[in-house]
C-alpha cells in the first residue's frame, strides 16, 4: 500500500515507494504519508500557518509569513521539511531541492510519522486536524462576518495570550469525576434553577448541540450568586491548571466568544505534544534518516552532499542546544547501551570507568529498547531517564547562565547534576511557568485568582501585566496573579483600568504596561 496521492513527479513518486519500503523494513509503523511538492513561497505560506494550509484568519500568520519569506529571499533561512501530525500524514517537499535532499527529507519524515503514530503523547491528538483546522477557519470567518473583524481579532489576541495555560497532562488523567453520562437529573435541576430556560436531555458529547450556549444563555452575575449558594466552599474545588477550560465554563462569554476560545484551546492541546517531544521527535527522525540513507538510500555520487546537509542539521552552537543533535545522540547511546547490556543494577554499581566503557554482555536489545522509548517517553522523562554522566561528558554539555556583573552569558558549570537539572527545568511544562486557578470567587466578589507555582524563576513582570489585561477581557472582573518577586510573595492585579502589585513594598509595574494598552 503506497500512498502516491500527492502531486509528485514520477521520479519522486518512485523514490517515495523506495524509501517507504526501507522504512517499513526497519520496523517503522506510520500512517499513510502524502508528500506534496510545492514552491518555496507556498512552503512559507504553509509554514507560517504552523503547517496547515487552511486556518482561521489572523494577522500573526501574516507576520510569520513576512519574516519567513523575507529571510528566505535574503538567503538566510530555508525550510527543508515540514510534516503534519494527521492521518494521513501530510509532508511537504520543496520543489527546488535536489533529489538527494528530497530523499533525505522523505526518510526523515517517515521517522516523524512513526513517532506521531506511536508515541503516547500523541495518542489523544486529533488525527483529522487538517479538517478540524479548516473547520475552525470557517467558524471564525463566520463570526467575523457576523460581528466584524476587530472584535473577533481582539478576542483571538486575548485568547492567544492565554493559550499556554492548559493542563498538558489532562488528556491522560481523569482529574474530576465525570458527571454520570446517563444521569441527567442533577444537571437538569441545576440548570433550571439557574436560568429558568428549559434544557433538553442530551448525552455528554451532544450537549453543546442540543443545548447551545446561545439558547441556554451565559452566566450573569445573578446566576453566579445563585449557583454559589449550594456550591462547595472552594471554587474551583481543586486548583485548576486548565485555565482555558475554567474560563470556558465560568467566564461570561457570548456564544461566539466561547466557541473561539474552545477553538484556541483545542489547537493548543493539539500542538502541546509537539512541544513536549521536540528532542525525541527530531532525534528519532534524524536517527532514521541517517540509518536509512547510510544503509540503503545513498549512492556514491550523493555521499558528500548528504554529509554536508546531515552535519548542517546536527550542528550545535554554544548557546543553543540543537534538539536534533541531542535526540539522535541519546537514541544512539541508548541503542548502544542496551546492545551491550550496559544497564541495570550491576552496571550502575560499577565504578570503574574502564570496565564500564568496555562493558559488553552481547545483550542485543538496542533496537527493541529505542522503539520502546519512542513509545512511552516524552522529552522530560527521556532526559530524566537516559541522560547519564558519561553522556554529558562525551557530548561536552555545559550549563550557562547570565552573569550580571559581566553582562554576558557564560559557562557556569560542567557538572552533571547541574546540566541535567537545567535541562529538566527547561522542559518542565514546556518551559512555561505553571499557573493555576485557585479561586474563581476571590474576596467573594467574583474576582479571578491565579497562582504561579514558583520553581525558582520569576515571571516577566511587564509581560505578565499585559497578559492580565487580556485575561480581564475574558473574565471581565478583576484578575490577580500570585507569584514571587525578589523572594517575596507578590500579587499582581488588574481591575480593568489600573494595575496594582502588592507585596512588602509596592512595586510599579503599571508604568510599562500603560504604553501598550
Amino acid at each position: 500500500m503506497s500512498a502516491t496521492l500527492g502531486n509528485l513527479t514520477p521520479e519522486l513518486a518512485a523514490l517515495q515507494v523506495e524509501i517507504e519500503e526501507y522504512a517499513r523494513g526497519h520496523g517503522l509503523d506510520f500512517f499513510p504519508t502524502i508528500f506534496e511538492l510545492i514552491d518555496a513561497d507556498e512552503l512559507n505560506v504553509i509554514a507560517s500557518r504552523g503547517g496547515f494550509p487552511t486556518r482561521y484568519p489572523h494577522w500573526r500568520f501574516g507576520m510569520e509569513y513576512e519574516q519567513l519569506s523575507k529571510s528566505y529571499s535574503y538567503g538566510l533561512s530555508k525550510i527543508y521539511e515540514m510534516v503534519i501530525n494527521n492521518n494521513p500524514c501530510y509532508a511537504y517537499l520543496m520543489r527546488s531541492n535536489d533529489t538527494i535532499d528530497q530523499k533525505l527529507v522523505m526518510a526523515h519524515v517517515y521517522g516523524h510519522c512513526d513517532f506521531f503514530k506511536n508515541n503516547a503523547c500523541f495518542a489523544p491528538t486529533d488525527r483529522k486536524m487538517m479538517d478540524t483546522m479548516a473547520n475552525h477557519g470557517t467558524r471564525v470567518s463566520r463570526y467575523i462576518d457576523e460581528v466584524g473583524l476587530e472584535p473577533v481579532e481582539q478576542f483571538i489576541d486575548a485568547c492567544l495570550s492565554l493559550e499556554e495555560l492548559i493542563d498538558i497532562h489532562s488528556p491522560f488523567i481523569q482529574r474530576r469525576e465525570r458527571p454520570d453520562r446517563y444521569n441527567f437529573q442533577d444537571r437538569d435541576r441545576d440548570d433550571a434553577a439557574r436560568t429558568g430556560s428549559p434544557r433538553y436531555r442530551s448525552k455528554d458529547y451532544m450537549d453543546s448541540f442540543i443545548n447551545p450556549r446561545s439558547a441556554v444563555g451565559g452566566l450573569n452575575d445573578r446566576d453566579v450568586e445563585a449557583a454559589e449558594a449550594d456550591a462547595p466552599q472552594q471554587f474551583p474545588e481543586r486548583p485548576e491548571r486548565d485555565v482555558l477550560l475554567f474560563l470556558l465554563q465560568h467566564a461570561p462569554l457570548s456564544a461566539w466568544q466561547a466557541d473561539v476560545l474552545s477553538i484556541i484551546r483545542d489547537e493548543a492541546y493539539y500542538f502541546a505534544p509537539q512541544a513536549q517531544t521536540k528532542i525525541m521527535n527530531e532525534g528519532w527522525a534524524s536517527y532514521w534518516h541517517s540509518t536509512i540513507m547510510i544503509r540503503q538510500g545513498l549512492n556514491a555520487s550523493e555521499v558528500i552532499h548528504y554529509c554536508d546537509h546531515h552535519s548542517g542539521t546536527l550542528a550545535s552552537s554554544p548557546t543553543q542546544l540543537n534538539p536534533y543533535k541531542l535526540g539522535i545522540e541519546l537514541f544512539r547511546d541508548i541503542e548502544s547501551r542496551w546492545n551491550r547490556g550496559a544497564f541495570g543494577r550491576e552496571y550502575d554499581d560499577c565504578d570503574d570507568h574502564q570496565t564500564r566503557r568496555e562493558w559488553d554482555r552481547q545483550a542485543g536489545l538496542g533496537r527493541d529498547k529505542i522503539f520502546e522509548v519512542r513509545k512511552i517517553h516524552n522529552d522530560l522523562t527521556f532526559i530524566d531517564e537516559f541522560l547519564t554522566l558519561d553522556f554529558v561528558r562525551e557530548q561536552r554539555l555545559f550549563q550557562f547562565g547570565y552573569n550580571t556583573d559581566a553582562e554576558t552569558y557564560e559557562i557556569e558549570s560542567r557538572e552533571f547534576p547541574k546540566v541535567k537539572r537545567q535541562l529538566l527545568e527547561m522542559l518542565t511544562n514546556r518551559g512555561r511557568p505553571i499557573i493555576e486557578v485557585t479561586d474563581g470567587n476571590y474576596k467573594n466578589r467574583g474576582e479571578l485568582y491565579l497562582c504561579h507555582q514558583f520553581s525558582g524563576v520569576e515571571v516577566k513582570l511587564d509581560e505578565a501585566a499585559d497578559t492580565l489585561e487580556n485575561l480581564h477581557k475574558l473574565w471581565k472582573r478583576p484578575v490577580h496573579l500570585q507569584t514571587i518577586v525578589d523572594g517575596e510573595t507578590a500579587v499582581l492585579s488588574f481591575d480593568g483600568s489600573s494595575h496594582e502589585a502588592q507585596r512588602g513594598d509596592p512595586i510599579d509595574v503599571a508604568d510599562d504596561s500603560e504604553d501598550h494598552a
Partner: protein
Amino acid sequence: MEIQRDNRRFKEIVRGRIKENLRKYITHGEMIGRKGRDLVSIPVPQLDVPKFRFGKNGSGGVGQGDGKVGDPVGQPGDGDGGQGGAGSEPGSGHLLEVDVSLEELAEMLGDELELPRIQPKGSATIEAEKSKYNSIRQTGPESLRHRRRTYLRALRRQISTGNYEVDDPRVVPIRADHQYRSWNEVPLPQVNAVAIYLMDVSGSMTDEQKQIVRTEAFWIDAWLAKQYHGVERRYIIHDAVAKEVDEHTFYHTRESGGTRISSAYKEAAELIARDLPVDQWNIYCFQFSDGDNWGDDNRRAFELLAERILPAVNLFCYGQVESPYGSGDFLDAIEKEFGNHEAVVTSEIADRDGIYESIRTFLGKGR
C-alpha cells in the same frame, strides 16, 4: 490567497503602530534607515502577544562544545534552530524591520500633522514624455519578444493551415508569427518642485544642530516629494561667504568663519535666476541658522530676500535652531521685517522635540 489577507492585516496593524509612534520617529530620525530611492525601513517593536513567561533571571540554558567554566558564550538565540532555553526568548530589544514607502510615510505625516495639500503654483504646462510598453509590433529585438502571443499566433496559424496534430502537439513559430512588445510615448503633465536648503555652517552650529536640520529636512523632502511626485533638492552652505554644495557636504562641513546671511541669499537668488525659471518651478526655500549674523548684514540680506527671492518662491521658511553660541537675534529681525508676508514662515526649534511642531508650522500653510 488567504495569507495575503493575513499579511495585509498585519501590515495595517504595523502602520497603525508607526502612526502611533510617529512623533518618536520624527524626533529621532536616525531610527529610520533609507533603503534605495523609495523605501525606508523602520524598526517596530515586535508585535507579540503577551504571555506569562519566565523572566531574565531564569535565562540560562545548556550548550555544547569547548570552554572552561567562566568563559563567555554568545547571546542565546544567536544560533539558528534548536531549543530555546527557558526564558531566553528575546525581550523587548527584539525589533521588526518594516519597509514602508516614503510616500506612505509622508501620507502618515500629513495625517498626523493635519497638513493641508499643497496647491501647485501655475498650471501643469510642462509636459514630459514617458515611454510605456503597452503595445505589440511585428518587429523588434528578440529580447522583447512576447512569447505567449507568438505562441498563440503560431498555434492559430498551424490550426488554420491544418498543420496541428492533436497527438503530436508541436507548435513551431516561424518568422511571421513573432510578436514584440513595443512602447508608446505618453505625455505626462509635470509639476516641478525644488527645495533649496540654506544652512549656516559657521562655528556656532554644532553637530547636534545639524542633526536636527537633517531630520527636519528628511520629513520636508518626504512631504514635498509626495505632493509633487518627486522633488529636486539643492543645498547652499554659508559662513561669511556662500557656495552651493551636494547633500553630503551640506551636512558635514564645518567652517569657523563669521556669519553673513546675505551671502547665502545672494547665492540662492543667483541659483534661482540661473536654473529655475519661476514659471516652471515651485520653489521652496528652507533656511536653518542659529540666528547669528553680522549686525550690518541684516539690512542687505532683507533687501535681497524681498527683491529677488520672495517673488520667486512658494514658501520661504526660516528655522532657528537653538544653539549655545548663537545670539538668536535674526529670528526677531526677520519677523519684524516680514512677519506679515504670506510666503514667509519662521519657527524656533529648541531641541529634537521641537522638530515636530516646526514641520507643522512650515508645511501647515499649504503653499
